[in-house]
């Protein structure tokens, strides 16, 4: 994919880190404030997409990162099922909230909900990013 102009590259350099941090904040505070794994994963994937759109990338690098994104998506899904299965093994019920609840409004509270949020964010972010890469690679096929 071709890169964009110098203005876009400069602005992207400034903003992309903030986008990434904001996405992580939305994910990690999913059980305390509005947001969560789905929204935060999309924001993190948006940071990656912005970076690639602005700076461009090689065909081979895109292929490699598409493979990596698929692997991460599978890891996210397996993590989510793993949490559910560990609840089944430890407490005897699928998806039971078996971890201690903690005090409300603390970052480490609400049992398994923050871990579920992290797993879903990996899954959604990597999935969206791999869809973006697949659709970007289609342009090359049309040009070939």
């Amino acid at each position: 994919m071709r890169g964009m102009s110098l203005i876009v590259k400069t602005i992207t350099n400034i903003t992309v880190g903030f986008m990434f941090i904001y996405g992580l904040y939305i994910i990690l505070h999913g059980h305390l404030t509005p947001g969560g794994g789905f929204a935060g994963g999309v924001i993190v994937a948006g940071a990656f997409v912005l970076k690639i759109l602005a700076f461009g990338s090689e065909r081979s690098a895109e292929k490699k990162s598409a493979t990596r994104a698929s692997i991460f998506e599978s890891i996210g899904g397996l993590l989510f099922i793993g949490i559910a299965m560990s609840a089944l093994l430890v407490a005897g019920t699928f998806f039971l909230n078996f971890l201690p609840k903690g005090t409300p409004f603390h970052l480490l509270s609400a049992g398994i909900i923050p871990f579920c949020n992290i797993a879903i964010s990996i899954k959604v972010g990597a999935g969206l990013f791999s869809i973006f890469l697949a659709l970007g690679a289609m342009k090359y096929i049309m040009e070939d």
Partner: protein
Amino acid sequence: MIELYLFLIFMLIAAIIATEIKDLLAAVISLGAVGFAVAIMFILVQAPDLAIVQIVVEVLTVVIFVAVILRTTHIDETIGKKLKGTQILSIVLYAFFTILFLIVVFRSFQELPEFGNATMKVASEYIKLGLPQTGGTNIVADVILDFRALDTLGEATVLFTSVIGVVALMRKVGRKK
């Protein structure tokens, strides 16, 4: 309650027409009638968001089916050329499954709350028990990741499937030059 039964019988008739009619365009339209009857029933039992989703999905499916039929063929050649025995068998099966379906529906409609009572009972329980039972202060996260986590697992599976579909459609391997 009676209107639900009317819609159910309408759906059954439309479904039988959809499988037995020779003109594929008419079959697709009767299939759409089934879907829209489901949407109206969702509204009647006070689930408007599900009704909206159902209408969107139904419109999309009917449009896609019509687009495919306009490009391929109108007539289903296999209908009407059956042997007599299989025809009788299919009529018996239709009747059997219709009666079975109506019995199941009657049993489940007995569980519906009486006219005048609130249909939505689960939401107030979620709001009441959200913080004490899960410890999370964001009630939406409590619902989707604790009370209804299995639902979220299904949603994640749908996303996974769609990603696999897009990647498989767009890959270069196996594409004709």
